[in-house]
Each structure stands twice: as C-alpha cells, then as structure tokens.
C-alpha cells in the first residue's frame, strides 16, 4: 500500500463519468441508523453499557483523559477539565475546519494535533488503541445529541469533494458508495443488510473486528470490498468523505460507542 492509493478508481471514474449522477440522497424522513438494521440481540448489546464492549475503550479513554503526557506533564483534563461538560456536543460538529492547515480535520486528528502541539507528547498512530480510546471517550459525551455539521463556508469545497467521491465508481467492481448506500439500502449484500451509511456511532465496536474501529477503517473495508486500493489512514479524501457523510446524517442522534455485526 503506497502513495498510489490516492489515485483510487480515478481511471474508472473517467471512463464512467457521471455513472451515478442521478443518484439522490436518502429522503430525510426515511433515514435510519445502522443500528436499525441489526438483530435485536445486537441492538440490546449496544443499548446496555454493561454489555457494550465499546465501553471498555470509553473507560480507557476516561483514564487517558486525566493522564499527564509530554514534558510539562499536562493532561487533556488540565486544560479541558471535565469532559462531560466541555466535550458535550463536540463530536457532533466534526470534522471541523483547522485554521493551521487550512483543511478540515476529523476528531481523531484534532486530538492527536492537540497532544503534539499543546502537550508536546509523541503522536498517536491512527487506529492505535489509545487514540481510539480518547476519540471514543470524547465522542461518547455527545451520545444522544443530534449531528450538527458546522456551517463554516470554508468547508464547502471539501464537503463537495466528499460528495463527488461518494458518487464516484471505485475499484475493479466499479461501484460507487451511492450505488449501495443511496440506491439499494433496503436490499441485502450476501446475507447482510446494506445500510444507509450514517456514521453516527463511530468509533464503534464491530463483532467482526472483535475490536473498536474508526470510520476510516470502515471506509477502507468498503474500498477493499469493491476491489479498490484503500486510501491510507488519515488521507484527506477520507476526511472529505466523512464531511459529506456527517452532512447526510445531520440531525440524527449520536450513538458512540455503537455495536455493529
């Protein structure tokens, strides 16, 4: 997996330009969380904090929130205090625009940026347990709150690019995200229900992974599924896709940490 990953499906897109140009988003009233498509047992597992394995990461994140890091021994809590108060609703507004890099940044990226710049701590690798735990802990504070994408107009071109990527055919199978998640969400793929791709429960615990994982991990799974080379973790295109997906899910309640089959 090299830098070539950025070029996923570009050739295919050129050949099939506009292949799903007519695809419409899911009707606002017809929007359903991925949890709605699950078996009752899996829904019960998510609903009960004592049986939701994602809570193990939330618990670990709570510990890390208060743990000093870096040369000055500052913890997240040193500046941000009680996360239940200061982080409430924050995850529902991400990805947000980052002034330093002039680009959108996702929640995990912001946490790592804060760690490096403010705490002077070594970076946390994407998809590492500590970063997932902190992200899950922060996002958990927004559980039940509606997804509220920021109105910042500087995000618009990135969001538009995310929308374009969502409708661009990818990989050897030449499938766009929209082919399944906008047009065929009431169908099944193999034995599994196709869902509407609303990222309201991330980071979430997938029984298939037997671990907590990020939206980027899920997006990379789907890319491998259509036989495209997955974009690398932290790729700008993945964050742009997340921007579009959160816009699609605006107003739906956050569920972090979710459980999915």
């Amino acid at each position, binding site marked *: 997996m090299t830098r070539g990953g950025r070029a996923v499906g570009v050739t295919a897109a050129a050949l099939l330009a506009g292949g799903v140009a007519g695809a419409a988003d899911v009707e606002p009233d017809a929007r359903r969380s991925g949890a709605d498509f699950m078996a009752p047992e899996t829904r019960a597992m998510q609903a009960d904090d*004592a*049986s939701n*394995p994602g*809570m*193990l*990461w939330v*618990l*670990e994140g709570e510990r890390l929130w208060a743990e000093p890091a870096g040369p000055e021994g500052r913890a997240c809590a040193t500046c941000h205090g009680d996360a239940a108060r200061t982080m409430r609703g924050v995850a529902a507004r991400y990805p947000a625009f980052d002034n330093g890099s002039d680009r959108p940044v996702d929640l995990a990226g912001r946490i790592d940026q804060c760690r490096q710049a403010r705490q002077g701590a070594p970076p946390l690798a994407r998809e590492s347990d500590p970063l997932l735990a902190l992200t899950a802990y922060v996002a958990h504070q927004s559980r039940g709150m509606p997804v509220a994408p920021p109105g910042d107009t500087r995000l618009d071109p990135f969001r538009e690019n995310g929308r374009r990527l969502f409708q661009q055919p990818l990989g050897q199978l030449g499938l766009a995200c929209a082919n399944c998640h906008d047009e065929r969400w009431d169908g099944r793929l193999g034995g599994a229900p196709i869902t509407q791709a609303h990222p309201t429960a991330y980071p979430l615990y997938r*029984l298939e992974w*037997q*671990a907590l994982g990020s939206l980027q991990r899920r997006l990379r799974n789907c890319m491998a599924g259509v036989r495209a080379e997955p974009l690398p973790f932290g790729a700008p295109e993945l964050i742009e896709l997340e921007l579009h997906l959160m816009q699609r899910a605006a107003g739906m309640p956050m569920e972090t940490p979710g459980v999915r089959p």
Partner: protein
Amino acid sequence: MTRALVNAPKTARPGEVIEIRAMIAHPMETGYRIGPNGAPIPRHIIRRLVCTYDGAEVFAADLYPAMSANPYIAFSMVATASGTIALAWTDDHGATQTATAEITVAG
C-alpha cells in the same frame, strides 16, 4: 492496562438471586492463526475467571480458545451478606486482572 467492567446490583435482600455481569478487554488470541510473517501467532487467552464473595469462591469458569475477544460472562448467585464481590481473570501469561463490586444486603 486493566480494563474490566463489573456490573452487580448495589443492594439486594437476603436470599435474593442476583446477576453479575463481567466484561474484560483481552485479545483472546487462539493460537491457531498465522501472522503476516507466516509464523503462528502464539496463543494468549484468559484461562480462568474466578468470582469470590467475601473471600469465598462462588463461581469459576474455564475459558477456551473459541471464546471471542473481550469476553463477556454473566452468571447468578445468591446474596447472603453485605460484602465485596471480586472477580479475577488469569491468562496464559500468568497475569491476573481483578475488579470488584460492593453489595449491601439488607432485609
């Protein structure tokens, strides 16, 4: 890194049957998988979960490779007196992780 969740009722009546639910973060590596270098990944599972109630063993379970990662185990016991419910998970490396819950039993 200990990450375990124990859920037990805070209070109970004497003789009441209560449910204890316990979950722990553990990879539960089966020993049957092959790593990216072609070598088998060594087995690393929790072998035994023991629950003691005021020092006396009330429940124990032997775990095998077919258990999922982050195993969740629920069982019931009879509440007799106020005290500490302690759970201890021991894995292949001989490491034991513990978690406790306090219960008040009053009629």
